[in-house]
Each structure stands twice: as C-alpha cells, then as structure tokens.
C-alpha cells in the first residue's frame, strides 16, 4: 500500500511555475530516491509534501489529504523532514533540540543517541557550535524524535566529508533494515543510492520523467537526466 501518493502535482513561486506534473509514490517500508539535476524541482516537491508552499494536485499521506493541512499537522501525521542545509535550532543544545521535537513512539533520546553516539558526547553543546556532520546527525535525530512514518532526507550528505557521508548512508540502511521506516531520499550520489534504494524517481523541469528500480538506472539514464 502506498504511504505517500502524489499525482499531477504542480506548484509555483509567485508567478514562476516550478512543478508541472510530479507523480510519485512511496510504499510502506520502502526507500525511494528522488533524483534530478539542480533546479529541477526536487526540493520544491519536498516543500509541497511538507506543506511549506502551496501546491495543486493530488497528495495523500496515510489516507489523509495533505492539501488541506497546515504544515505542523502534516508533520504530526508522520512526515519527518530533514531539511536541506540541516537547519537545527541553533540556540538550543543537542539535548534540547531533540527533546523539543519529541512525540511518543519508538524513538526517544536514548535510541537516537545509540544511533549517533557522537550526539551523546555533545548533548549539552549548542547546535550552532557543532560541525556540519554533527548538525546533519542532529537534524536526522530530530526528525526521528517526531516518530515519523516517512522520513524525508533533503540533500542529507551534501557538503560533508566522505567519512561522515559514509556514516550517514550506513544509518540510512540501518533504519531501513532494522526499523522498516519508509524513507524518501534526495541525493546525487548514485552509487550509494543504488545500495539502499528500492525505487527511483527522476524529475526534470518540474515533471517526473523516469521511474524504475535502482538497478534499472543505466548509463543512458544517467546521461539523459542526471549527468552534467
């Protein structure tokens, strides 16, 4: 069953239309990748799902019509966003960042710390004083604390050191294998995505132009839709 179903989604920033025809679905327990070149509408799609910008078209999440909900309600239904550029609550400590987002469920402070031991070492430190990688872990941890049904990772490995990227990818596959969480990943690293993703959607100029399993991504697909 589809947890998230998007059909003919379109959205605009003022007079400029960014999305024309996005079609996408995420099933329960599935890791789905949303790919495409820069400026093609990946982040706009995420913002639409999280109700941060107005959009038109069909958008259903766990049996609810997302289009009629304000963003905090969408999050309460179980959409956990790890936003692009991390966006932690800078003036709060690691512990406070996590606690402020907590909603009851499987994930709690102890389990997040177990997943990211580094956050445990830094629990009293303010988010602004963390390194980029630690902030990314904190952003993921914060999203998990809301006990989401769907985790959305928007460019979660962008601009991070290779070792940290590896750690984040390891966590993503751990989440997939051990908790069966549905995940929507936006990323550009094809090889890492192939290792964890069940299915891939590619967008170009605001439209879904390709979908298939990760294994089906051929050199031609990469050249046509992803290569620079």
């Amino acid at each position, binding site marked *: 069953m589809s947890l998230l179903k998007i059909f003919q989604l379109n959205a605009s920033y003022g007079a400029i239309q960014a999305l024309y025809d996005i079609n996408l679905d995420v099933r329960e327990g599935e890791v789905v990748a949303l790919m495409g070149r820069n400026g093609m509408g990946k982040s706009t799609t995420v913002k639409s799902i*999280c109700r*941060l910008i107005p959009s038109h078209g069909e958008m259903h999440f766990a049996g609810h019509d997302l289009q009629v909900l*304000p*963003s*905090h*309600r969408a*999050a*309460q239904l179980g959409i*956990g*966003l790890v*936003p692009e550029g991390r*966006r932690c*609550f*800078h*003036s*709060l*400590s690691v512990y*406070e*960042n996590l*606690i*402020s*987002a*907590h*909603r009851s469920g499987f994930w709690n402070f102890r389990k997040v710390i177990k997943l990211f031991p580094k956050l445990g070492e830094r629990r*009293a*430190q*303010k988010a602004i*004083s963390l390194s980029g990688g630690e902030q990314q872990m904190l952003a993921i941890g*914060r*999203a998990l*604390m*809301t006990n989401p049904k769907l985790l959305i990772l928007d460019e979660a490995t962008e601009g991070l050191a290779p070792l940290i990227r590896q750690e984040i990818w390891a966590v993503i596959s751990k989440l997939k294998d051990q908790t069966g969480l549905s995940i929507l990943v936006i990323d550009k690293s094809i090889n890492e995505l192939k290792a964890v993703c069940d299915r891939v959607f590619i967008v170009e100029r605001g439209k879904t132009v390709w979908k298939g399993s990760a294994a089906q991504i051929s050199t031609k697909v990469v050249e046509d839709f992803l290569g620079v």
Partner: protein
Amino acid sequence: MINEKYFNSVIVLLLLLVPAWATASDEPFTITLITRAVVFSLAAVGLNIALGLGGLVSLGHAVFFGLGGYAMGILAFHAQTYSALFEWPFLIEGTKSMPLIWLVALIFCSIAASLIGFLSLRTSGVYFIMITLAFGQMFYFFSISWPKYGGEDGLSIYVRNGFPGLNTLIPLHYYGLCLVMLFLALWFSARLKKSPFGLALNAARQSPERVETVGLNGKRLKLIAFVISGAITGLAGALFADLNRFVSPTMFSWQTSGEIMIFVIIGGVGRLFGPVTGALVFVSLEHFLGGINDYWHVYLGLFLLGIVLLGKGGLVGILCGKEKINA
C-alpha cells in the same frame, strides 16, 4: 565576567537586605521604593516571557498592567462603597481580599491576552508592535472616557486590600508579599524556559518554519506565551494599584508599556534576572536623578542608549557575558 549565578544571588541579597536596612534605620519610604521596583520587576518578568522567550515585541503590555490595576480598583471601589458590581443575573459584590482580586486579574488578563494575541499574532515585526500599541491605546482611551470608575481622575482606594495572615498596611508585610510573588514568577519562568514548551518556543522564535516541520504549531506556542506573559504582568498591575491605593488610566498608557519594555532591555532580554535588574536600576534612577532634575528622562535616555550600544544583552549581558553554551 561575573558568573551569572553569583550576579543573580547578589540581586536576591539586595532585595532581602535593603528592606532589612530600611527597617533597622526606620526608613519606611525606602521600603515603598523597593516595593515599587519589585512590582515593576514582576511586570517585566511577565513581558520577558513574551519578549525574551517568544521574541514578541509587545508595546501593549500596559493593557494587562492596567487591567490588573482596574481589577483591584473596581472590586475594592465596590467594596468600600458597599455597592454591588452586578445585581443581575446574579449578585456580584466587590471585595477587599487580595487573593480574590489577583484571581480576577489573572482571569481577565488571560482572556484579554488571548484575544489580543490571537489577532496580533497574525502579523509580525513592526506590524505586531503597532497592533499591540493600538490595543493599548484603545484601553487607555476607554478608561479615560468611562466616568463610573473615575475616568481621567482615576480611582482612589482608602485602605489597602487584605491578605490572610498579614497586615498589608505595614510596608514590610506588603513588600514581603510582593517579593514572594516575584520569586514565584521567576521560578516559574526559569522552569518554563527549560520545559519542552519553552524549548519549542525558543526554536519558534528563531524560525517558525523549522518548528512546523517537526509538528509544532509555532503560532499557538507564541499565543500561549503571550497569554502567560499578559497574566503575570496583570498580577503586577494589581499589586501596583494596591501599593499606591490608586488606579488611573496612566497604567494603560503607552508610556507604561514602554517603561516595562525598558526594564527588560536595560536588564537583558531573555535573561532570568534581566527584568529585575532593569527595574531596580530604573527605580533608582527615577528616585535619585528625579530628585535632582525634573527632566531626568533625558539621562535615562542616555543611559538606555549606552546600554543598547554597548551590547545587546543589557546589564546582565555586559556584566556576565553571553548565556553559557553548556547551560
């Protein structure tokens, strides 16, 4: 830099020692003066919850200060004239009991803050400042034009209201009462800041969008903060009116709103003892400079300018530095 904990302890000691000294040297006026500072502190502790935690620059907190004042004034007025507030649909009489007056003040201020907050929080920034200011002026002119309760002349209450077990007419007793209320409010606001609600509010102040994505309703958090803030300032209003045994529309004026904000800014926005420090400094300046020159506000202005230019953290920020990272 002084450790903030030591600084706060010094302020607490000051609040305990000054009245002790005043009693020993038979200076009841000093007690009245520091009671005034304590009541102002309480009002500012209230505003600090909206301003410091919620980032809501409210230039209308005089509404709550005044409502608290008039809650006391109106109830005590009916009690001293032996007239009923309402006879229909049921009889409501005045009262001279402080706990009852405080309860009424808290309830009315919460209702007013919910309504004002609900409407004002649709805006932000300069518009929020302006709309809260406009509400303040509405209450100010309403109180002036309502002759039943003194209109422009205000209401005098002959005897200070009573509190069970205390003789509130003795300055030291009344001071103690106000001080306990201040400490309770400080304790509450320290707890609030560290509570999940306070943390979420802190996050919402920085970025409403970010808290929405973790399922928190930023606007509602701010509204709750505004209501709590208004209620505490309202309590201070009731105490202030009882201190002077007099209420007038001045309590509603925008100067009052400005002064409450000045206490917070002088002391340090968002700092626990900022409002107390600010109010103590303000009342000292008012007393000592006001004694020298009628135009003492000029010096206050210069002082405020200095504080704002020296650093955003107010006096607490200048003396104790930024809030500790590992709090």
